[in-house]
């Protein structure tokens, strides 16, 4: 499938869950030095559950779309469910083929989310 299919472009141009969060439980900055993609991820937890998640940042379409989609996916999930999402799961979610050079972009938000939640 075309790397830049409409869904990716849509998420890039009008990302979901974009913006700072007040009263967050967790916050984390991620940086991809090869591209210069920057992300700040915010999360609100209720016991074991991600009740709210948002992000800010700038970067390529792949990194931004992946962050947007991932925040949609994990909202409402338990920590265990979120940590269960695999690399392959992210690529399936993006529904596109990504070459090795751009894999970091695709996985930037996923890496950040895992770092925030891992025990």
């Amino acid at each position, binding site marked *: 499938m075309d790397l*830049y299919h409409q869904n990716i*472009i849509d998420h890039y141009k009008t990302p979901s869950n974009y913006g700072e969060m007040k009263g967050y439980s967790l916050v984390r900055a991620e940086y991809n030095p090869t591209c210069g993609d920057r992300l700040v991820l915010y999360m609100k937890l209720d016991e074991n559950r991600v009740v709210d998640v948002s992000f800010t940042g700038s970067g390529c*379409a792949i990194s931004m779309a992946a962050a947007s989609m991932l925040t949609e996916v994990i909202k409402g999930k338990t920590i265990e469910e979120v940590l269960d999402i695999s690399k392959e799961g992210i690529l399936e979610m993006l529904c596109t083929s990504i070459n090795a050079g*751009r894999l970091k972009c695709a996985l930037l938000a996923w890496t950040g989310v895992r770092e925030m939640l891992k025990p």
Partner: protein
Amino acid sequence: MLDTKHIKSNFPILKTKSNGYSLVYLDNASTTQKPKAVIESISNFYRKDNANVHRGVYSLSEQATAKYEEAKEKVVRFIGAKDAKEIIFTKNATEGLNLLAFSLGKTFLKKGDVVLVSGGEHHSNLVPWQLASQIFGFTVEAVKMTVEGRWDLGDFQNKIKTLPVKIVSVAHASNSSGVIHPVEKIVPWIREKKALLILDGAQSVPHMPVSVARLGCDFLVFSGHKMLGPTGIGVVWGKKDLLLQMEPYQGGGGMIREVHLTESTWADVPERFEAGTPPIAEAVALGVAVDYLSAIGMGAVFEHEKQLTEYALGEIQKISGVEIYGPMDMISRGGIISFGIRGVHPHDIATICDTFGIAIRAGHHCSQSMMGVWKTEATARVSFYIYNTEKDVDELIKAIGKVKRVFQIKN
């Protein structure tokens, strides 16, 4: 313009396809492609001439040594110097700058001294000085850049005058903006200060006539792979009287006069700076690359790139939504254009270009300080060489149009 049809026929890789399209290679500031003569010289060396240099008493070693030394003769003539003893072969320009930072640091610099760089340097002319400063105690200061990517000459002169500057180490031509810097302006200030001048020629030596005699620098550093040569070979040229005073950078075989268990004395130059077995086949192949460029003539190389750059600048500026970083005109600039499309990240531009077989660079080009001047994280960059044509530029322009369509950029 050069006879690109003939030149292209000398480069096997330019006949290959990339993603189903004929390869359009526009990342020459990063590394250039190699002509058949260079590729074959490596295999020929290993078939016919291979032995270690400066060591064997047998004929084959003498033959390999002669080839290695011949490469130095070619290189020294190519940069307008005379004595091949002033040529040190390194791995690349980066290693050359590390060699100078550590050797000059140890030999000449002390706490309080200043090494002056510019705010537009490649990381290879910044980080080695930072590392060496931690050991030898000197300070690194940077000259301000204009938004075009030129030196702020007022700041340059002021810093040389007022700071205890011992070394000025700057790029001759920029790898991000394409600017060719006015070395002749700073040389008198440096001489008056009795400081040393190092030029990073990685982006100038491959693209224009360079003469160290005319430039008036003390050291010149460049890479072989950016000028048709193989990877793994770079050059430091330095004035012999300075090299003779300098401490070695790395220790090992070949760089010593006498070795005792706890102390040693150093070989003459340039051997003092070439510890261990050098990249021999690579040196010989660099000599072949120098022959290839010399046959075309560096004036003609520069003129070819100039015409392509002028054409590309004109075509790119016709596209709405595209912004060019660095000079828009042809004054003192080489064949590098940094640009962006508003609303699209440079990596996405490069990825879409790649789907049409067009290789361009996207990123900070190892010059994050220059990105800071431009207030961006990254740019897309095209850089030309002798085999590029106006048709390559046309393909690029079409691809930029496609990028705008994919990202639905209307203006």
